């Protein structure tokens, strides 16, 4: 009987997707907090699941997942300039300042953390330098691609990590807002698995020029969050 020996890359994937990994994502609610305090509060767990689906299918999937896929392509070719172009493009698509700031803060810290123990990866070092020089923003999808690649994580798995991590951060925010209890949170995550998988499949090989997002109600929610005088989350 042959036993599958887990690869270092598989374990690296677990490391980067662990909520203990310091990405700062626990500080984000992606506008859910604003919805909670509005007159359109989500009152059931199915409503939360459906909301997260909208993010995955209309924002994070076609924009962030595509950016991650494109980043991987340029990383494989060691084309830092094209990588910076992806960074600039996805950065410009983050319309809300809070969201842009959160993404770049998360991204740069993930990069620094991985860079602290993967010191010999030339593309990671080059991209970090571009961020320091402000040629690149360090936006999260690109930073995750660079960091994931440095740890040998393949493109599809990095995309799964990103979309799964986003879903978990929203469920985590909902838990802290008291929208649901912890078993419901896990049920929602389980129910989102097909959406996560389909979003990756649909968007990971999308060309940079075909990146899109269209979720105006979510944009308005995130704008409303920016204007809240009292808030628990940074987005």
């Amino acid at each position, binding site marked *: 009987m042959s036993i599958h020996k887990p690869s270092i890359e598989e374990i690296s994937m677990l490391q980067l997707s662990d909520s*203990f990994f*310091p*990405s*700062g994502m*626990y*500080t*984000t*609610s992606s506008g859910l907090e604003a919805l909670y305090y509005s007159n359109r509060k989500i009152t059931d767990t199915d409503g939360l699941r459906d909301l997260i689906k909208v993010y995955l299918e209309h924002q994070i999937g076609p924009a962030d997942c595509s950016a991650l896929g494109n980043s991987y392509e340029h990383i494989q070719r060691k084309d830092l300039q094209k990588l910076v172009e992806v960074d600039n493009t996805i950065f410009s698509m983050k319309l809300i300042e809070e969201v842009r700031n959160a993404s770049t*803060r*998360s991204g*740069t*810290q*993930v990069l620094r*953390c991985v860079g602290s123990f993967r010191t010999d990866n030339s593309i990671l070092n080059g991209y970090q330098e571009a961020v320091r020089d402000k040629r690149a923003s360090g936006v999260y999808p690109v930073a995750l691609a660079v960091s994931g690649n440095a740890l040998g994580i393949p493109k599809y798995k990095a995309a799964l990590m990103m979309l799964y991590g986003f879903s978990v951060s929203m469920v985590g*925010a909902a838990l*802290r807002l008291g929208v649901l209890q912890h078993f419901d949170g896990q049920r929602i995550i389980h129910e989102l698995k097909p959406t996560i998988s389909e979003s990756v499949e649909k968007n990971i090989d999308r060309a940079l020029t075909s990146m899109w997002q269209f979720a105006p109600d979510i944009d308005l929610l995130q704008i409303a969050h920016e204007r809240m*005088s*009292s*808030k*628990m*989350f*940074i987005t």
Partner: protein
Amino acid sequence: MSSKRIPRLGIGGPVGSGKTMLIEQVVPRLSSRGYKAGIVSNDVVSREDAERMRRNLATERGLMSEDLVVGLATGGCPHTAVREDPSMNISVVEDMESKNRDLDLILIESGGDNITTTFSPALADYFIYIIDVSGGDKYPRKRGLGIESCDLLVINKIDIAPYVGADLSVMERDAKAIRGSKPYVFVN
């Protein structure tokens, strides 16, 4: 180009113990001695503390520019934000450092938390932990990482000790026993 690391001081303590007030007392004294400080105020719920400090220290008294008081929401996880995952705080602090190379000190105020709060050394070089007598004289005896390991333990609001049944001599005895040679101070 050399990048000087600006010293960072964490201020931790339970809700209402006097963290913000401590900063509001310290900053003017630093300013009068020619030291320039920046403040990052973590708050669990609102940016009220940061805005209060900005108003008191910057807008009204002109002791610092308003952009040197920054509020940061922490997703309801105050201890995570200064220890397990201080990435957002580090990012904000580094922003402040890069834009204000002449700062002498950056103060990082954690959101109100429990007695186990400590600061990651990646975020703060030193940290002060502040408790107040209204918690009773069972502190510092009850210990807790924050009380035990901080660089300076501050015991605040000593004037109300008689009214809350807190025996300051007991608190001092326990502070000495728990902290050994590490400093503590009673304030009001």
